[in-house]
């Protein structure tokens, strides 16, 4: 029983570290995890869930604004990018945040093609992160069900 838990904990730790190393997550995600405790075991999952919903909503509305080449509402797109950058920054979604930086630059010079590329990229990145974090939360679940504690992982 103990070795099962230990093995799962090791898996969890390695997976989490890899997400940081591959640039999916940054230090802000660590800060989020610090705010979670036994009393609020779903805090991180809830925040990221809100984030992914936000992504979906913002991407849809920006897509609509970019739809017609002759009538692009860059102000709306800029507002969307600003919100996306803010929330990705708040949860530690590093890759998503970085795309937003490029996205804002395209917006500033009213480059519709560039915006569309960034939109596609941000869509890809948030969905990729969603999958990765789902796998991470699944591992957490397995640890808890096996009677173990979620390891505190130090990222340097």
């Amino acid at each position: 029983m103990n070795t099962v838990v230990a093995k799962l904990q090791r898996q969890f730790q390695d997976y989490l570290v890899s997400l940081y190393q591959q640039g999916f997550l940054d230090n802000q995600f660590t800060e989020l995890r610090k705010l979670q405790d036994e009393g609020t075991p779903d805090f991180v999952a809830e925040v990221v869930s809100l984030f992914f919903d936000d992504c979906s909503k913002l991407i849809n509305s920006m897509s609509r604004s970019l739809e017609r080449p002759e009538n692009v509402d860059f102000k709306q797109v800029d507002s969307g990018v600003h919100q996306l950058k803010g929330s990705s920054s708040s949860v530690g979604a590093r890759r998503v945040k970085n795309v937003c930086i490029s996205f804002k630059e395209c917006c500033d010079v009213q480059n519709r093609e560039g915006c569309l590329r960034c939109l596609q990229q941000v869509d890809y990145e948030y969905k990729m992160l969603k999958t990765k974090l789902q796998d991470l939360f699944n591992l957490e679940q397995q640890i808890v069900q096996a009677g173990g504690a979620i390891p505190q992982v130090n990222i340097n």
Partner: protein
Amino acid sequence: MAEVMRSETLNISNNTSSLASPELLHVLAVDDSIVDRKFIERLLRVSSCKVTVVDSATRALQYLGLDGDNNSVGFEDLKINLIMTDYSMPGMTGYELLKKIKESSAFREIPVVIMSSENILPRIDRCLEEGAEDFLLKPVKLADVKRLRDSLLKAEERVFKNIMHKRELEANDIFSQLKRAKI
């Protein structure tokens, strides 16, 4: 014949603290981002604060009873020790909210902290000039909240000490008067 000093003339208030309850700061947080609201709420709860979160400056004004509607009933009991607001919000910005709060006689003493994801110096200056207590870069850190909390509690302690000192002086004054009246 000595005059009897009545307690009403002493005019000593028993309300020494504006804290919502002992050691518990009540913070009003304002942010249009649902992710940031969830985050700041948790941050503040972990820091042992009582939290009220609203999604716009307009709602914040409604909560404080400053929205111009004639409802000052019950707002005397509203004890807010700190307001934390996002800067960039649709409709009324955090800066405009700050101004409205500083214009109000009921709430101008409440410290207002501005949060922003953008490190724009003129913006920071403008907010501080308008009376903001502090300007925090997002994402806000646990250490930032702790620092705010500690500084507010220290300020409360100073106010409390001043009141106790004043009471002491008043008591000494009464004692002297009683002595002179040879009681």
